[in-house]
């Protein structure tokens, strides 16, 4: 018999999730949001004020390649090699509109500091100026056309001039007249690369008219923009300097290279106390194995991303307090949302890829074993279906019903629902052709536990409820709350008994709807940090939420107040080691056999919170499983605390409890991702 706390674990590593390379980033220092564009055209929004939580993901599409991102106020623009400028609708997680620039591929966009003009550098050698209007942008003028593409742009803070990085040169334009006023010739590389044109990958135009450029010959050059003369050259790599970023106070510049390094330059006096300052190469960070394609210099940190797909936040230790949470290095390698759906009753897994879905049936073992043992696999896992999407838009969400007979996915354009019929030998999939027209602009999908309802979060934070039966699907209701928030709902969590539906949106609101009455039951008191996982307890009807700052709350839906346990937890505070984790909890499940158990996981651990046990003291050992194992039974009970954390599994994408109480753990080891990356630039190692 299976004891308390003993689980049969299906350890799944066949989800070939491959994140896409980071191409561009833009940071909005007012809202502290970082926009990240990936090579597959997806745009992600991270909230730097809230533990780097990945709030929003706008799915990409085939053929969209984003070369540049630009914030204008709260509006986000992108441009790419397909030649269009796109503005995003961050409330509905989709492009709002795209405007063809008619200049061939666009390499860069940049807005002036006033937020009135957007400049786009095009392949045909023009810098195109767009006026930023309330609801759109409008082409205004071309700056004088150059020979050779415009690779990079940077506005002078006054907005009167704009510097453009090109092939072999940098041009400075007067933004009023559109005429080029200076031409700065950039040296080519030495040796064989002499014959190759040098590409000025990035320029930065500072307030004191200093221009800083990074180019394909590996140089960071400092120019005087008033006279057009070169002040200094710093050769930082044998390969390319791909990107530059300046700090807000213009005292520090960072350069990202093909070697995966980020080199910092600071504007410092040559001797302490002297007035005249120079740009001095100060620090080198090496957090990437591949090209650093995108960089952001926040006030306290260097944020970098590139070919190796990881987003790295490297705090500058002179700007943050040492040995605090803030000074720790953050690497974000996995999405903060679920790409895996699990049919608990049928033992199926649905894996979401950008352009296809995979449906797998788990394997089986007919034996039991002692803890730590691997059981012989009687039946191997089996890929039942690989569903390729139609159209160019990538999948933004997907869901599998608990019974395993419904499958749904959504792109920005459409929702598709399929009926699955699985027998041991036969697999059939049938598309449900007529879907209610209310099912549009969906960014989260979820089935009820009895698989009779499909919930879809839609625009204006509303939830569309659709009834499913054998043959068709019927629109029932749209659930709306009255808070006025238009932010998208990123979590849908129906209760096991079918009475409640909890929703969470990126305004940090949690609303609970009564599904029998089809109306709002209550709203959980707003907490400052965004919920990362929400779930309703099957028996007690308590809502458990975990937030980006790692706080855990339990809210009683009956009493409409925080539960006693939750208040006790808040009084005592969470263990420091729990708070120091840097990946959010993305899933909460409950153990039907033991109502006191809350199971949750992040990327690096899986944890069962036993509400019947005392909470861990700050001084006690938090990760105590190994010690407990070595203790005899009675003592074990005395020593144990509420958080039973298990670190056996790493790089967890999903943990689910099946109906037979076995766990399904989906891992995606980082090494598997790394080994699928292309080879980095060749580096001379010692003694090779």
């Amino acid at each position: 018999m299976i004891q308390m706390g003993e689980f049969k674990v299906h350890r799944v590593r066949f989800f070939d999730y491959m994140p896409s390379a980071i191409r561009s980033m833009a940071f909005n220092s007012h809202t502290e949001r970082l926009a990240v564009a990936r090579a597959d055209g997806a745009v992600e929004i991270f909230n730097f004020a809230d533990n780097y939580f990945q709030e929003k993901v706008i799915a990409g599409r085939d053929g969209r390649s984003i070369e540049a991102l630009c914030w204008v106020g709260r509006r986000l623009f992108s441009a790419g090699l397909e030649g269009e400028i796109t503005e995003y609708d961050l409330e509905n997680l989709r492009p709002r509109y795209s405007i063809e620039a008619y200049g061939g591929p666009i390499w860069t966009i940049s807005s002036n500091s006033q937020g009135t003009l957007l400049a786009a550098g095009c392949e045909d050698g023009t810098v195109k100026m767009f006026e930023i209007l309330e609801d759109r942008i409008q082409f205004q003028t071309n700056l004088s056309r150059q020979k050779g593409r415009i690779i990079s742009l940077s506005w002078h803070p006054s907005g009167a001039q704009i510097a453009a990085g090109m092939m072999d040169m940098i041009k400075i334009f007067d933004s009023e007249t559109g005429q080029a006023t200076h031409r700065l010739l950039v040296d080519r590389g030495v040796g064989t690369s002499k014959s190759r044109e040098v590409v000025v990958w990035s320029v930065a135009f500072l307030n004191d008219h200093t221009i800083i450029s990074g180019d394909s010959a590996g140089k960071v050059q400092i120019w005087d923009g008033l006279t057009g003369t070169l002040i200094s050259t710093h050769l930082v790599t044998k390969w390319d300097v791909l990107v530059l970023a300046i700090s807000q106070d213009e005292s520090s510049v960072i350069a990202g290279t093909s070697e995966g390094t980020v080199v910092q330059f600071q504007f410092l006096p040559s001797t302490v106390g002297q007035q005249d300052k120079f740009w001095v190469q100060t620090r080198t960070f090496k957090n990437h194995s591949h090209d650093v394609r995108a960089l952001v210099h926040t006030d306290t940190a260097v944020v970098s991303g590139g070919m190796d797909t990881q987003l790295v936040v490297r705090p500058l230790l002179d700007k943050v307090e040492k040995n605090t949470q803030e000074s720790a290095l953050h690497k974000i390698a996995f999405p903060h949302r679920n790409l895996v759906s699990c049919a608990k009753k049928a033992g199926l897994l649905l894996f979401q890829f950008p352009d296809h879905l995979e449906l797998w049936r788990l394997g089986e073992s007919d034996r039991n074993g002692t803890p730590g043992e691997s059981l012989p696999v009687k039946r191997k896992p089996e890929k039942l279906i690989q569903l390729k999407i139609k159209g160019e838009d990538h999948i933004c969400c997907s869901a599998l019903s608990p019974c395993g007979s419904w499958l749904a996915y959504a792109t920005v354009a459409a929702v598709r629902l399929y009926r699955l019929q699985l027998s041991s030998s036969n697999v059939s999939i049938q598309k449900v052709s007529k879907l209610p027209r209310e099912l549009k602009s969906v960014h989260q999908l979820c089935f009820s536990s009895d698989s009779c309802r499909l919930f879809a979060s839609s625009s204006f934070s509303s939830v569309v409820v659709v009834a499913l039966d054998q043959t068709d699907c019927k629109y029932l209701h749209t659930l709306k709350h009255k808070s006025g928030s238009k932010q998208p709902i990123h979590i849908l969590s129906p209760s096991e008994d079918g009475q409640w539906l909890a929703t969470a949106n990126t305004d940090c609101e949690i609303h609970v709807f009564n599904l029998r009455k089809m109306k709002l039951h209550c709203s959980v008191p707003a907490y400052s940090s965004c919920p990362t996982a929400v779930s309703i307890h099957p028996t007690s009807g308590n809502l458990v939420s975990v937030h980006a700052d790692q706080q855990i709350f339990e809210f009683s839906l009956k009493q409409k107040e925080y539960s006693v346990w939750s208040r006790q937890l808040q009084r005592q505070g969470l263990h420091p080691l729990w708070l120091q984790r840097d990946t959010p909890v993305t899933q909460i499940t409950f153990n039907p056999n033991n109502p006191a158990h809350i199971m949750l996981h992040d990327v690096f651990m899986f944890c069962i919170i036993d509400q019947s046990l005392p909470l861990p003291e700050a001084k006690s050992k938090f990760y105590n499983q190994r010690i407990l194992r070595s203790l005899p039974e009675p003592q074990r009970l005395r020593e144990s605390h509420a958080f039973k954390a298990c670190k056996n599994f790493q790089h967890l994408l999903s943990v689910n409890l099946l109906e037979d109480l076995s766990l399904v753990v989906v891992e995606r080891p980082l090494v598997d991702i790394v080994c699928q990356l292309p080879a980095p630039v060749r580096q001379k190692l010692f003694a090779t």
Partner: protein
Amino acid sequence: MAALCEGYTLCGLVPAVNRRSSEIKGIEEERDSDHVIVTDSSRSVTLYKVSDQKPLGRWTVKQGQLLTCAAVFNKQTNEYVAVSDNKVIRIWKEDDIILDKAFKATVSADVQSVHCAHGAEPAVLFQRGAVRLLDSLLSAPQQPVEEVLVQDEAIRWSTSIVTDTQQLVIFTTELKGDHFLYLQRLKPNSVQKYRLEPEGPGLSPLSFWASYRDKNICLLYLYPNGHVYQSLVSVRAPEADEGTQVVSLPRDQLLSLPVGKELLEAASAIFLDDAHIAVVGVPHPSAGPGKDFLCIWNTNFQTLQAAKEMAGKLYGQLWSFSSKLFIPHGKALSVIPFACPRSSLASALGKLKQVKTEESKTSTVVPSWNTILHGEEAAAPKPVEARKTRTTRKTQSSLSLTIDQVQDLIKMASVEEVEKEVQGLLSRQDPNDPQLSLGQLAMALVSRSLADPKFYSSRALTQLVPTRCLSHSVCPDLLPLALEKRDYFLCQLCLLFFHDIPEAVTCACLKAFISLSDLDAEKLSLEPDSVSFMEMLLSNEHAQTGLQNGFSPTFCEEDRTDAVDNPKAKAKEKKKASPQQTCPVGKHKAALINEILQTAYSEALLLPHLKDFSSDQVVLFLRYLEFLYLRYSTDGSSQTHGYRSPSLNQVMDWVCMLLDAHFTVLVMSPVAIDLLLNLQSFVKSQVRLFSELGKIEGSLQELSKMKMKKDVGQYSIEVMELY
């Protein structure tokens, strides 16, 4: 290892499409090794300065005329000689601008080629095999020329060689598939004809090369099947009756080059020195076919020493002048400098010296096998080398005395004078062939010292030894002389720099060092590094610095007591525990002995000489070795200081050898018995330590097993328990 250096282009070529050979007809050395004249198949002769990659002059015959043989340079008269249209001999000087206005003479028969070996008179070889010296030919240009060759016999290749006494013209001919070698001696004229052994049906030699070596002409030829043969032809004039008949030429196969499936088409092989040949047009053994390589092979060891892929088509043409190879390939004539240091197996024999970083930086010149086996004379200077020394002498003569002069001086002059000259010579040392010349110098110094007991120049010799150009085999009397003169500093230097000291001499040195009194030794000035090492070792003699891995001699003594039952022995041994830590010899003496410990030796050869030692000497030496061993084992830092010092293994080896050689004597000797017991106890403690380490090996392995993560496949079902 022979090496090919980075090459450079001397001139461009018009790429030959269908021809087997390039447009280059020949390359000849001009006034010195840096100037060559290149004759191309069209109509011109060009003089190049090689190091500048620059043409200095160019002479062209008129349109319609053709140069039919490679131009040569007559060093005696500074004239160029060439032949146009087979019959017209042209002679001009460098300042002649128009070739047509220079001297011309028409001869009565077709000329095959003109040869001008170094310092010799030009010789003209006619197509029908006759040879004339140029001067005698020009005195009567229309003189009748006899036919040496029979009908259909044609000259394939020719060259000319100058020996000490004679000038020779060598050429090979082909007649109906048979190949013959003609050796034409000039002044007095005589011709010798040899038949080359046939290689196989239809196989004709692709290339020939001849060099003069050890009073023989060494002929090197390459067949299309990759076989490279060498034949030795004596230059001595044969008996009168021998001259007329055709002798079969014996041959040795030097190499069998890998050619792949197809036969070679255009290839050639030339001698670089007595052990190396350069081959062009033969595929590299590990590269695929169709790749064109220039390779250097060592014929002694049959190994490929260096290879270089050449761009473009190779024509199988190759010339070599003064360590530069000239090779036409593709659209260019490239010059590739090469180096062929003598290789040896010395490093493979005996125990190799402990190579420290500073030693490995400077290349040590290892004597060639010839020198070792046959003494100095066998390694006769090769023509190339002789030329080189000649040129260097020329440059030095104006400054000061040459090596020869210094050598003469050594025979007569006073010690001071000799020392001054040797120092001067060393300061402007010529790196080209220092081994030979300095060896001769050292030999001269040593033989003078041996002959004249009053003459001994320690300073000159101590300056010569560290040049790393000498070795024991070059100058075998040096070390015994130093020993005899009690010049221990020189002994130390010899031990340090010579890698080939015979075991007998090593033992003689050891004996001398051990019997040296400490008082005398203190007065010696020795190599500072070795003395500082001993100072370091002695300075922390009593300072019990950090113990390695918790090892403590006293602890091990106590540890041992439970094994030894006899309480008397126990007390005795305890008493003795400390004296081992004091050095039994003074530091200078110790430094000298250390030098012996670090020399290369082979055990079998050393043992008989070790047996000659008296028991006192053996005990003292053993004490010292024990001291070193204890210091090394207790103080791990003694070997990590950067000084040159004997390694723990070397010390151990010597202890073992010494015990092997003298065990019976030592066991009997009452003085040695304590020493032996101590050694035994120490070894026992070491053995115990290792057995303890062996015991925990299992645990350590378990640790590493734990570290290794189980490789989880794509899917597994596991049982997990949370407490």
